[in-house]
């Protein structure tokens, strides 16, 4: 039972701290901005789906998807565990792919997505914040990356 496992928790605590610190300092602001986007994207998607879903179902499903991504990113960026870390990498990565893909589609074929979503025109309607946010988010996550070899399974509290 005592096969060197005692040493691990110390090392693990340090590693998790670096990951945990991503919700402090600048990370606080990042989470707050993500929170605002989660809120507004959810409200907007809810409004679109409740009042005029039939007009452009694809665009409004996309709105709802964006809202879910923002909610997931907000929660996982705020939580401290390693599992949350990788979930936030996934959420922010999907967000970056989404804003670039939807931006390109709205640029190349405006007819395909007739209604505005958060990501249309690379987030034009929101001052391009949706485009800048995932880049900043990934930079921040990279700075707070877990130590090499740290697996999600090591995150049991």
């Amino acid at each position: 039972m005592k096969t060197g496992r005692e040493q691990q928790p110390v090392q693990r605590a340090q590693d998790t701290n670096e990951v945990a610190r991503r919700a402090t300092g600048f990370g606080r602001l990042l989470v707050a901005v993500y929170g605002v986007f989660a809120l507004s994207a959810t409200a907007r998607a809810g409004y679109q789906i409740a009042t005029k879903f039939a007009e452009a179902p694809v665009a409004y499903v996309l709105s709802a998807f964006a809202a879910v991504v923002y909610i997931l990113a907000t929660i996982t960026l705020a939580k401290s565990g390693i599992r949350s870390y990788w979930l936030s990498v996934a959420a922010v990565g999907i967000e970056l792919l989404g804003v670039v893909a939807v931006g390109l589609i709205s640029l190349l074929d405006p007819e395909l997505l007739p209604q505005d979503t958060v990501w249309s025109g690379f987030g034009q309607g929101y001052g391009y914040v949706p485009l800048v946010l995932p880049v900043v988010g990934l930079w921040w996550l990279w700075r707070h990356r877990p130590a090499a070899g740290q697996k999600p399974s090591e995150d049991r509290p």
Partner: protein
Amino acid sequence: MIVDGFFIAGAVVTLLAAIICVVAAILKHGPNDITILSLAAVELFLLVYAVAGIIRQVSGEAVAGETWEFWGYLLTALLVPVAAFWWSITDRSRWSNLVLGAAAVTVFVMLVRMEQIWDGAIAA
């Protein structure tokens, strides 16, 4: 859009709070009485705005846009300073002042939208 007194008052309170919080962050201060009170002023404005909204509606003033949308915005806006306050006091770094400032800016944007709904201007 029609600029009314509520909008002017709200814009002054929210933008002043945003400036105070951003300046405090630049000066490397953590959240303090001044920045927290500036956000409390935003919350107070929203409460007055809400009570005035109820009185205006009861006395028969019509909302140009969707009434439920106006109240949806207002109820959500009321939560923003509270959430920002809760999120900022648990980390007393200067970034937390930017969180408070971001909340003030968010309320300002929501106020613009609420005024558009109430007065019936072109939807954004």
